[in-house]
């Protein structure tokens, strides 16, 4: 009996070791160092809540929090998920050229990220970008340096995010939609329900748990996305397009100020953990 209760722990020991080494330990270090002044290569000095006070009084940090949670994890993720659901519905129904259309829609997701980001910058480049060149040629528009202004620069970041990641979530929703019982749709059609009614009364109630799980998951992933913003703008112009990941990089690697980098994420940790807990609950509910 005793042997039986020990053996399972032995089997999960490797994964638990990795979990503690790569998840729990870094998290622990992050939280602890948030209460210290930790400069590159120097011993940490305890400073209490100083880092938290400093950051929450820093307009750049507050602006970055806004960027991260409102346009980035809020607007970009939600538009993307909504579009993904629409595309998935379309692909689930379309019969003609279905495979070709699916392949085309999924293409952005399959392309390498860095290549796409570099191409995205070039496309919008005011001097040699294809869009500006077309606007100049056909509409005599002056070249627009869109990455030089906050709103347009962040707009382009969001647009890229939507273009790049909508296909992935489309695929997930498509899988979900194809798992729904066709008999429900057939009955609804016999009863004379239109497309909107079918979506409202059948598709949405059934797909809703999956949609919420995917949205939360996407928010958590997007929160940690460093590459998109860094390659497109590096936080410019005037550090206005930073998200938390890029701002933390700036503190850690450009300033050698590790404690501020840690604290920038520790502040939002309760919120992220809350999101993850809700996500887990939703997944558990979904599986039941």
């Amino acid at each position, binding site marked *: 009996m005793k042997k039986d209760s020990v053996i399972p722990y032995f089997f999960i020991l490797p994964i638990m070791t990795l979990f503690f080494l790569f998840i729990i330990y870094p998290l622990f270090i992050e939280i602890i160092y948030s209460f210290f002044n930790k400069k590159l*290569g120097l011993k940490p000095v305890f400073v209490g809540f100083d880092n938290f006070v400093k950051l929450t009084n820093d307009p750049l940090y507050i602006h970055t929090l806004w960027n991260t949670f409102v346009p980035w994890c809020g607007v970009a993720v939600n538009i993307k998920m909504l579009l993904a659901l629409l595309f998935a519905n379309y692909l689930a129904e379309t019969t003609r050229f279905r495979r070709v259309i699916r392949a085309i829609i999924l293409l952005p997701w399959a392309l390498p990220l860095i290549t796409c980001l570099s191409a995205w910058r070039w496309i919008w480049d005011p*001097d*040699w970008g294809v869009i500006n060149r077309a606007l100049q040629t056909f509409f005599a528009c002056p070249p627009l340096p869109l990455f030089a202004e906050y709103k347009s620069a962040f707009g382009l970041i969001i647009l890229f995010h939507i273009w790049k990641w909508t296909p992935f979530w489309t695929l997930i929703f498509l899988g979900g939609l194809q798992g729904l019982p066709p008999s429900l749709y057939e009955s609804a059609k016999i009863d004379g329900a239109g497309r909107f009614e079918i979506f409202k009364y059948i598709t949405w109630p059934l797909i809703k748990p999956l949609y919420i799980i995917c949205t939360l998951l996407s928010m958590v992933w997007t929160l940690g996305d460093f590459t998109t913003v860094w390659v497109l703008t590096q936080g410019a112009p005037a550090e206005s397009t930073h998200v938390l990941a890029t701002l933390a990089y700036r503190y850690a690697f450009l300033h050698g100020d590790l404690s501020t980098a840690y604290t920038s994420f520790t502040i939002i940790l309760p919120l992220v953990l809350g999101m993850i807990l809700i996500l887990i609950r939703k997944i558990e509910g979904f599986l039941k």
Partner: protein
Amino acid sequence: MSGEKKEEKMDRRKYIKYIGAGAAIAAAAAIGYGVSELTKPPPKPTTVVTTVPAPTTIVTTVPTVITVPTPVVTTYSTPSPTSRRITVWWTTMYLAAEQLATIQAVREFEKQTGIGVDITFFTEAGLVEKVTTAVEGKKFPDIVLTHMPFLAANIAVNGLLEDLTSFVNEIKNDLLPPVLEASLQFNKVENKWSYYAIPLLTDAYNVHFWKDLYGRDSAPTDWEEFWASVKEAHNKICKPKGIYGYGLTMSDLQTDGYEAFHAISKSFGFDPFPERKLAIDTPSNRKALIETIEFATSLYRQGLFPPGVITWKNPDNNNAFHSRIIAGTSNHTLSIPAYQYENNKDNYYNKMFTSVWPIGPYGDNRVQLNARHIFIFKDAPNKDLALKFLSFFLTPENYAPYVKGYIGRFVPILKSALEIDKDFWYNPKDPNIPVQVEAVTKRKGAPLLNTLHPVWAKLDADNIFPRAWIKVLTQNITPEQAADELIAQVKKAFEEFYRA
């Protein structure tokens, strides 16, 4: 039915048995190979070169830039089982020839000293990340060459670098004077200034022109005449072709933007750090800042620069020049002519030229110099060997061919190295290299501020200076407001530094 099932089960068992036997044989073979490899006598020293794809820029004659992966040497080591080894981290260079020059020098060092070298090349940002994690993990390399000025400053300020004063004293008389100035770093832990890093390479802020697009074979050195000539070229030659007279990087991305800002501000007499003491809020400095902001933004508004200059990254002015959408540009190092030298000698010798940065409107003839620092960690495992390596590199006969291998992109920091290859550095037929050498040796060299103090390094890492240009152009604030904002930011940063 049950018989079929039984047969199927037996088949599966057989299958698993065969797979198991196969795996056992493979494992035995792998172990055998491993044992034989481990018991082998050590190999004779042979060069190991690892190549990985790294982006290289290919520029076409139309304004299109293509990046393709080409093999670039990343890690180079010569296994020498008997001798000691040092770990060297180097910044990846712009041209393949530059890495080859480094590898050749390393090979020579190994040959002469018997000390093995493990050299790894990193991108600029990659090196910063690697050094940061190495410092935190206390796994120091022995010697590092960086092109990011803030890196040496960030590490020196925390007292992590070896004081190279005695070494610098040995070669002091041979060093170009501004180099010495850029070597002096602040150690806040011990509260002292000392030679913690040596610029292995230096370079000036140069101007390059296409002769046909500029309509001249040389550029005036007088400020007003210089910009009048650029305007003339823009209006008469470039504008009708739909291209631009000049490409001045004005963005707050990467390093070219702040280098341009500092070069122009120096021309207007901006001197905020005389004798390493902050004096940014003097009326003359405020005026110089306002003029710097006004000057570039007004040229931008006049359409003299491509509209994208406010979003350009470091390679973009190079690309615009090679693509001939600008008649001229300014740039640290001779990377632009060096590219043409490698790809089109006719362009290099006959169709383009380099000029010194013009003398400022009030007669300020300082020319901006950059420093590419080499440093040794205080806790490096092989500090003695690292010093040997540094000493080898900076011996004129070893150093001269190394710098020459960069096709003149940088200027040697040793006067004697210039003398050794006089024909190369002062070749009268070369329209580019002697110009930069003259700028470095004859004009009054002024190192970039970020080489002089960790706070300037931090401010340039944040790119606060060119941001003033962008704010004036995109947020409609006045140059006066932008200048006052800059002054306040700099003062605050210094206050915080000394308060902490």
